[in-house]
């Protein structure tokens, strides 16, 4: 990943997480209710940016899913399902692009343009 992609990632992952949390809350209450077009527009915006950095290699369903179509009236549980897969895919991308420093205290850093950077990150959650 390059520096710009890491910056995009750092903005995108929390956005996706909060969208997921919000819709998951709605989904718990009314899983089959359709999501309104206003929310769908922003979710699609997040997903479209995610698609750019994930590319086909990391996209959860590269052949079947790109964005939500508002004509399909996706419901809350549909959206939660997709967002959760995207969250996992993003985490997988991160895990593949971070490394642990050799010296103590062995913190984790992003690999930018093939080199270990000074951008610290959390330990990986997916092997």
């Amino acid at each position, binding site marked *: 990943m390059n520096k710009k992609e890491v910056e995009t990632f750092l903005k995108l992952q929390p956005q996706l997480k909060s969208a997921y949390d919000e819709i998951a809350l709605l989904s718990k209450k009314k899983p*089959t209710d359709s999501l309104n077009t206003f929310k769908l527009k922003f979710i699609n915006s997040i997903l479209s940016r995610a698609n750019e950095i994930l590319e086909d290699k990391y996209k959860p369903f590269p052949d079947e899913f790109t964005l939500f179509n508002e004509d*399909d*009236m996706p419901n809350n549980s549909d959206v939660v399902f997709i967002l959760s897969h995207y969250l996992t895919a993003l985490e997988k991308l991160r895990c593949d692009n971070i490394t642990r420093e050799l010296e103590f205290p062995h913190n984790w850093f992003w690999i930018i343009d093939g080199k270990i950077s000074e951008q610290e990150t959390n330990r990986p959650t997916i092997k």
Partner: protein
Amino acid sequence: MIVRPRLNDFYDLPFTQEQVDFAIPFLDEDIPLYLDPFLLWKSPSQQDNSLHTSIINSFNYLGSLFLKDEKTAVQILKEISECDEVGLGNSKTKHGKRIGDKMAKTILSTFKNIPQIQRQGFTHFEELQLLIENFSRDRVSDISCNFLKSFLADYTIQQCEKYTIQTDLIEIRVFDCKKLEIVNEKINLPLNPNTKEPIMLVPKRWLRFVPWINFEDYFQEYVSTSNRLIEGKTIPRVEILEYNRKNYDQVQAYVKRKQLEQKDCKNDPLFNQIPVLSSKRKLSTITKLPTGKTNNADQEYEKNLCPLLASMLYPELDFAQPQSRTVEGVLIRDLIFYNNTSHKLLKEIYEKYESKQIVVELKNTKEVTTTHINQLNRYLNNEFGSFGIIFTRNKPPKNVFKNTVALWAGQRKCILILDDEDLKLMCQVYENKQRKPIDVINKKYVEFIRSCPS
């Protein structure tokens, strides 16, 4: 032919009742509402208040004229007792009957026989419903419209310019409140394309099903507590009217109370959506109904689905009317909606399939067959264009769905089949308000088009 045509349908003007300030007139029948002068009296608008004053002044002038020149006053009242141009009321022909000499004299004699009215005149002339036999809400409405005709003409011209409704120069009879007589005036008004008679538009905010001051309400509030009624005896209407004429202060007290309750007086919309709770009940009734005709289940299906769809698809689709037709000995029930292109799907239906009205066929059958599809296909004509919807109970079999796809591929006709599951989704959307029920039809359309060969 357009089913229950309205002025805008004839001129291909795509606006919905919700979007415009006036009640869209039907071409063949009256709008089933009445102008209630009380709404003008209670309106916060100074203009409406002055128009009410103008109605009352003009009517009271007729009363004072009656005391001096009975013949002229009677003549004027007879002429203003009907206002065909506005087309309000229950007439199926758009033509009402004027009152006769006797009725006009009876009405105006209140100025002679009731001292309070002789002294001060009326403040709400709809009180006449409580004083005169056969003076009903349509007379209140028509007389008011005639006194307001000059204003309504200006209002109509203004609205016609705004919505590009075609107008023509025509001579009409208008009550001139300066000369205090009926005069001929040439103005530009829209014409009924069938009869070439002028049409006047009326603001929606002045219309109610029943005037705020009315006999039934008076009876309920005052007379129903009478000992005679409690004892099980009846009180003839004429007797009440006679009593009111002799005890006008009773009427005044009632009117005063109605004035104090003015906050509750609201105009009635032309169409009322059913509440969510009621929609849930109707859905539950429908889903429990057996298919076929067992215990008139088909009629129950229509009875429940008609108000449900009309409410859920409002305001995007204005409901025209249900209709029954017989094809090959089978009774078919349809719901007809006006297509006012107020949604992207409706615009596409209008442009691509040339449907000015949308036909929704109701089929309470276990399974839709190709025969049903072919029946609807044959029915799709000029006004309905090449688009139709079948509402049925279960998902169509694959061969039937393929048949609709083949129809699209061969003749570019689109027949969508919606079932109980889609209806449930529409009701859910109607309840949670996150999307519009018409989006469910759009969803079905998008899915259908995806299945069609490109």
